[in-house]
């Protein structure tokens, strides 16, 4: 239970609602805030340096999970179609098969793009994405400057975006 956070959530409800709406919550913005309320209620007590920033971060994470779940549902449907289309006469499996093929090709392109990125930028990106390290910790770990880490991260995101956008 965290009364302080709940009070700050209530006081900033309108702004947080605008935020989740702007992040694509649509009709479900109220639901997301309700979920945020439950998360905050279950959060461990303890001093939080910047409570409003904490709430925004939590709302951002909820929105990331939602968007991710949506993307995965699309992929899962494709995988399900692929593994079951044989037993469903009359339903063509071509589109699903095609989707899986596109996914594989895309993975190959991303792989090539990351391989072309260079060792350091790729390490930076991996430490950021997989190990979840903050820029400062990545800089310490690799013995490079903060601005190098940030520029490597941006470079890596751009490379993957390019790989996903280009059809070949």
């Amino acid at each position, binding site marked *: *239970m965290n009364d302080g956070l709940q009070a700050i959530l209530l006081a900033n409800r309108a*702004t947080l609602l*605008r*935020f989740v709406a*702007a*992040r*694509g919550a649509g009709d479900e913005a109220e*639901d997301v805030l*309700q*979920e945020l309320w*439950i998360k905050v*209620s*279950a*959060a461990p007590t303890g001093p939080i340096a*910047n409570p*409003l*920033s904490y709430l*925004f971060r939590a709302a*951002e994470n909820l929105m*990331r*999970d939602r*968007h*991710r*779940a949506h*993307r*995965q549902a699309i*992929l*899962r449907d494709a*995988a*399900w179609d692929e*593994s079951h289309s044989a037993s469903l006469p009359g339903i063509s499996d071509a589109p699903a098969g095609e989707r899986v093929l596109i*996914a594989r090709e*895309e*993975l*190959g392109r*991303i*792989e*090539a793009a*990351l*391989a072309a990125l*260079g*060792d350091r930028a*790729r390490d930076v*990106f*991996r430490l*950021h*994405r*997989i190990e979840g390290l*903050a*820029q*400062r910790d990545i800089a310490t770990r690799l013995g490079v400057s903060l601005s190098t880490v*940030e520029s490597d*991260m*941006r470079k*890596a*995101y*751009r490379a*993957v*975006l390019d790989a*996903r956008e280009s059809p070949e």
Partner: protein
Amino acid sequence: MTDRGDIREAAVGWVTAQADPAFADWDGFLAWLEADPAHASAYEAVLAAGDAADPVLRALPVADPVPAPARRPIWRRQATGGWLAAGIVGAIGLGYANLRPAPFVVETGPGEHRTVTLDTATIALNGDTRLVLDHRNPHHATLDRGEALFDVKHDEAHPFAVKVGDDEVQDVGTRFDITRDPAGTRVAVAEGMVVYNPKAEAVRLGPGQTLDARQAAGELRVATSDIGSWREDRLSYRQAPLSVVAADLARGLGLPIDAAPDVADKPFTGVLAYGGDKTQFLDRLGPLLDVGVKRDQGRVTLTRKADDRL
């Protein structure tokens, strides 16, 4: 630079800036999002790109959690151009032939769902689940904790095996669900056939059969369509002890839920849909399970109903 390029660059900037735990310019971020609907989609595209890169990044050989001889990551060797011709870079992907284990962990937080696609199987992870996979051996997985639904492409020569504690589940072409929690292991088969502990008891399970080694409950039967229904935030039971229901709900809702000893073995038959409002769901849970629901400091405990104690 085009407008679109500018927007993309700004989106990359926001995603990178937020990787800093001290990021606090939420007002600035909100103003940017509200300035143009294209901003939100550009931002989401950057996040999606990050997610799409994760499987590739996870496959990068790095310092091993298990003792292994010192070795250099394969991509480094390519990059230094020492002993691999540049031309075969494209051919070396996730499936490069190397028999040394390269384990990696896929983990979900409470209430989080995630799907992993391998060449051999598609695995959907329920909340609070930890699965260890090996890029050098795509026919093997270890479920350390939680619940996962496996869709396995059957390969006669290389059966897919899942290690769960000291037990092993081996597919014979299949869609199956495994749960592991402190109480033990549950295996439910939706399609095909699996063999439980092929080298020991070798129990064969067919469609619709569930083996529950969690409560020494023996074999239960559940309807095929119900298996893996947690992915739709729906759980269905036939004569399941409440301790099992509580553990499933805790995983799915992402809340600490326990069954008190006085109701832990009480059987429940029915369907729980928990996709909507969690507070409302918890309010309805007591009458549904015919128990009391005690909430304290964010913990939820299923207990005997207050009037039963009188």
